């Protein structure tokens, strides 16, 4: 197992965060334990101090003198040698003190406010003592009449605190050491667990890394979909790949289709020329052959031009600057005028319905708009029998404008209908012969409509005719038809 984490890695950050939290909490534990240990140790110490002071009080005896004084019998006292004490009687006379002390009078003391009695601190020869003052009483001659005499004594008793602190330090050190050991153990453990926990991510990355232009196959590991954190990522990867693959396949198909069209076009011209050169021919035959070649190359030229047009509209980037707009009714009028001769030649009547009043701007440049309209109208004209009509209506909604172009031709086979907007698709090859279409006109129309954010649809009843409907969004200035922006 490799635990080489870079400092920007999520695992590293998580481990650092967990360890920091652990560190802070162990510091907290140490502080709390310090407080607790200090409290319990000093409570115990205070109790033992009081006990020792009481035993000093016990050593105060009747002095058996005339004044019924008391005395301190130090012979029977067994106290820790480091402790200090002194005993006064009620008249302030010193009854006795420990040999290692010069007495309270010669010592600086700090009162300590404990609720258990009047304790105070003493510093003696650099050592810290905790001391208490105990007031006690002795009854001298209790067998006498009147119950004897009451003698008050004051005992000051202190003990060095070093060993208390030592015990506290020992306890705290135990906790601190435990925390450090815990940190040392949990660090690698968390790293290992995280490494394991991040396994689905690495598997996902490895599989995603295998996807290439040649192999789009991506099957995420089962864990990726089951892990809530990875599911959105997996879905995103899948959908991105799907879209990429679709667009790649589209491009590939386009290139392959285009290559096919161009090669066929070139093959026609080449074979025409070679056929002409196969044997001696009359000047009239040569002329006819040349004219055919010219017509062939014009067709090829047209195919190339349309392919470039299509590529231009299908490229996604929109040009910077203000969105160009065109007045659709005006564009329709101009295009119908342009196609009038062609329609007359086919003996088809082109009938644009009177457009609704006002200007209806669509977000398409004027020349592109006429490409769209002429492609659709030409298609309708080419598939119309003589002495029929092609109608074009404009209807407007609140935010869209619909253009309906209707012919009364032979209609389109339902099998073919879904493909008519495909590039290079020709519904019926016999049409190619009569109309010379490149199979790109409707694809271009769709590309223009979709680029403007609109849509295009086709409906057909075989034998009755075909209806193409273009739905385009209206540009912002459309409703304000008073604006005198020139169109086309």
């Amino acid at each position, binding site marked *: 197992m490799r635990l080489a984490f870079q400092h920007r890695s999520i695992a590293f950050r998580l481990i650092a965060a967990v360890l920091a939290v652990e560190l802070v909490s162990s510091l907290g534990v140490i502080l709390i334990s310090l407080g607790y240990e200090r409290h319990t140790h000093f409570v115990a110490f205070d109790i033992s101090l009081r006990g020792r002071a009481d035993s000093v009080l016990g050593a105060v005896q009747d002095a058996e003198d005339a004044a019924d004084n008391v005395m301190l019998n130090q012979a029977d006292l067994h106290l820790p040698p480091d402790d200090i004490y002194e005993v006064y009687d009620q008249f302030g006379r010193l009854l006795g003190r420990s040999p290692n002390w010069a007495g309270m009078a010669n010592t600086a003391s700090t009162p300590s406010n404990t609720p258990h009695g009047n304790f105070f601190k003493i510093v003696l020869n650099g050592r810290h003592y905790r001391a208490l003052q105990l007031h006690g009483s002795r009854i001298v001659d209790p067998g006498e009449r009147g119950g004897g005499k009451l003698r008050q004594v004051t005992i000051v008793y202190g003990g060095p605190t070093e060993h208390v602190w030592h015990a506290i330090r020992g306890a705290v050190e135990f906790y601190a050491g435990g925390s450090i050991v815990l940190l040392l153990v949990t660090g690698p453990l968390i790293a290992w667990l995280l490494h394991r926990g991040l396994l689905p991510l690495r598997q996902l990355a490895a599989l995603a890394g295998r996807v290439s232009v040649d192999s789009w196959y991506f099957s995420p590991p089962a864990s990726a979909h089951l892990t809530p954190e990875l599911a959105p990522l997996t879905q995103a990867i899948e959908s991105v790949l799907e879209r990429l693959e679709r667009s790649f396949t589209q491009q590939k198909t386009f290139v392959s289709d285009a290559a096919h069209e161009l*090669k066929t076009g*070139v*093959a026609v011209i080449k074979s025409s020329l070679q056929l002409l050169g196969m044997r001696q021919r009359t000047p009239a035959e040569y002329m006819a052959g040349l004219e055919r070649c010219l017509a062939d190359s014009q067709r090829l030229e047209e195919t190339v031009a349309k392919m470039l047009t299509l590529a231009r509209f299908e490229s996604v980037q929109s040009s910077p600057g203000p969105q160009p707009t065109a007045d659709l009714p005006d564009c329709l009028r101009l295009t119908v005028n342009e196609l009038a001769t062609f329609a007359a030649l086919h003996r088809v009547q082109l009938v644009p319905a009177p457009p609704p009043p006002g200007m209806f701007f669509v977000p398409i440049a004027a020349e592109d708009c006429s490409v769209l309209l002429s492609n659709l109208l030409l298609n309708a004209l080419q598939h119309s029998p003589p002495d029929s009509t092609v109608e074009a209506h404009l209807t407007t909604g609140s935010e869209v404008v619909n253009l309906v172009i209707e012919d009364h031709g032979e209609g389109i086979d339902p099998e073919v209908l879904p493909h008519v907007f495909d590039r290079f698709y020709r519904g019926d090859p016999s049409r190619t*012969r009569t109309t010379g279409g490149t199979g790109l006109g409707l694809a271009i129309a769709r590309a223009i409509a979709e680029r403007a954010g609109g849509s295009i649809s086709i409906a057909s009843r075989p034998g009755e005719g075909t209806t193409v409907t273009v739905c385009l969004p209206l540009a912002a200035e459309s409703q304000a038809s008073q604006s005198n922006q020139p169109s086309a």
Partner: protein
Amino acid sequence: MRVLLVEDEVRLADNLAAALRDGPGFAVDWAEDGLAADDFACAASYDLVILDLMLPKLDGLGVLKRLRGRQDSTPVLVLTAKDGKDSIVQLLNAGADDYLAKPFDLGELLARAKALIRRGKGAAHPTLAALDLSVNTLEQSVHRNGVPVALSPIEYRILEYLIHRPRAVVSKRELLEHLYDFNWEHHSNVIEAHVSNLRKKLDAAVPDAEPVIETMRGRGYRLAPEAEQTS
């Protein structure tokens, strides 16, 4: 020889048909989609199929598979505008005999067409010989015993067809099928007249010659086998 040309691009098909008719003098039937091609191939026997790959209705590969599925061994020359070795390998494995990538050279197409027909009939060399006859299929010239014989195009085509199958009886129906496309009226007496002229011209080339074309009454024609001993 009769060729089925399957090509959806009208202008290219026109040119190819013209070249095949003008040059080697083949009879050409033209199908513009895969289904029509399949119908043509079922209805008549061809000496060669020239098959475009990208076709409406049924693609070239489909036509080829149906053809081979019927145990039809007609040579197939595929025209393709597709790139890539894979599709070529796939085609050859499906039973194609040769391929040409578009845009191709018309001369090369004709040469390959002739070679495929020749191979399909079991001849390796473009000059065919039987008895004392030799037919150069490249120059379309005929010699008998070293003497050139001038023939009309249709007479040459009859002889070329017969010499591919020496000693076999070729019926009038077969000759008609292989020498004319569907656009011709089929009259067997036309064939009779041409064969009669052909026989006269070949026999006139050499004095006291044995007749080379034998008429099997009610069955057809064949290049006379017993003449073999005289040469």
